[in-house]
């Protein structure tokens, strides 16, 4: 429970939390995202796609780490593709990168508080927010442990904690379930559903089952372009008995890829 400011309860003036039109982003010299059109609002969106499809590059550009080469990108109604002041948007952003870097000597609590400070949260709100975030990811017992003593899964949960500490309006999680055991993955899906109630969450993952279970919306990209955007049921409906896969969702995924590749080959 926390106090909610007037700004947070005011109605939003923008239609989409994330809106990309003709987005082009370079990763090095390679054009990893090539003409992507995307519109995402409140809810949990799962990002699927083969390796090298540009998922991580998309996450990085949405996190304002990479500047787009071309096209328009709007986050929370603010344009982030020019030389605009990104501080306003970044305050309401939460990001967990695929390569999660951390200060090994900090304890979990100290690192989450440090990230809260970096996100310019008001000073008085930091300790409470950090405690809430740590409890939500289930690390309360390990809050005073140094980060270098954590196992892989706990480290990932600490990363999720720092991403959600400022109650972001846009939450970007790149491979958040790596190293989590099945029970922790179930808890994580519950966390995602909670967050998805009033923010736009984008989860990039290879685990199709997580997407189907927790996401309200599935986005599939391949070779830098949008392949599919729709509900998980729609994804399942794309597949049939003949497609490779051990579950309906995987069959739908393979079917979509096959269609896309066949279409691109024409």
């Amino acid at each position, binding site marked *: 429970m926390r106090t909610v400011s007037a700004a947070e309860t005011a109605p939003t003036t923008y239609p989409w939390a994330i809106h990309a039109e003709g987005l082009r982003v370079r990763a090095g010299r390679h054009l990893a995202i090539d003409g992507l059109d995307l519109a995402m609002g409140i809810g949990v969106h799962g990002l699927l796609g083969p390796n090298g499809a540009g998922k991580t590059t998309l996450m990085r550009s949405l996190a304002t780490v990479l500047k787009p080469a071309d096209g328009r990108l709007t986050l929370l109604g603010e344009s982030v593709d020019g030389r605009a002041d990104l501080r306003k948007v970044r305050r309401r952003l939460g990001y967990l990168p695929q*390569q*999660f*870097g*951390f200060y*090994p000597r900090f304890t979990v609590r100290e690192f989450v508080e440090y990230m809260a400070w970096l996100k310019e949260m008001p000073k008085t709100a930091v300790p409470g927010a950090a405690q809430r975030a740590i409890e939500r990811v289930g690390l309360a017992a390990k809050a005073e442990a140094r980060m*270098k003593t*954590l*196992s*892989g899964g706990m*480290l*990932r949960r600490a*990363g999720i904690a720092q991403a959600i500490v400022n109650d972001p309006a846009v939450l970007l999680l790149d491979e958040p379930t*790596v*190293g989590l055991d099945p029970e922790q993955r179930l808890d994580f899906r519950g966390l995602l559903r909670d967050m998805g109630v009033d923010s736009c969450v984008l989860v990039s993952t290879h685990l199709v089952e997580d997407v189907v279970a927790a996401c309200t919306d599935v986005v599939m990209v391949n070779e830098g372009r949008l392949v599919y955007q729709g509900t998980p049921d729609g994804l399942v409906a794309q597949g049939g008995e003949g497609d490779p896969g051990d579950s309906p969702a995987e069959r739908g995924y393979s079917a979509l890829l096959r269609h896309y590749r066949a279409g691109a080959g024409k």
Partner: protein
Amino acid sequence: MRWLTLYLRSRRVPIALATAGGCTALMWSLWSAFSDDRTVAIPMVVLTLLLMTAALTATLSGPDDALDKTAAFSWLPRRIAHLLAAFLIVTVVLLATRATGARFGPAWLVLRDAAGLLGLTALCAATMGTARAWFLPLGWTLVAIITPLPDRLAGRVLTWQAQAPDNTAAAMTAVLLAFGGLIAYAVAGPARSAPAEAAQH
């Protein structure tokens, strides 16, 4: 030959050699340009040796020591060869300057201090890890340069880096450090570093 190339690249030896060579060239040029004396002052010689040793410290461990330890062959002769090669490189480069316009220190001083400093670095790498292995050689040598204590035996042992080349106490200390470091590093290898890699998957 292939293994040697891969090993040198995994330890980033070419960069280290270039750095060490570059630093020596810099010291040599500075001295030649700014001083009329053909013999380089002893503190500068010791500092150059320290700089070369620091540049070669990073080669004492690779990106993943735990992986290296799983090798089928024994690392002991290879580590010994690594340290001996480092010693040869440092001493040959500095002694080669004796034919040039800025001569680096008495030969015995170069040999003694190179052996002692490399041994101390290897000892620190085996106990504290390669990232911190330059702490003690740097601090100790800086103190020794500023306060050489030639009067008493304890002083000569404690500031061995700055004593005259014919001083037996200093030579003994350097030999002790050299062999101690060689044995410790050859047997134990570099100490394990913190597993920040736990996050990188």
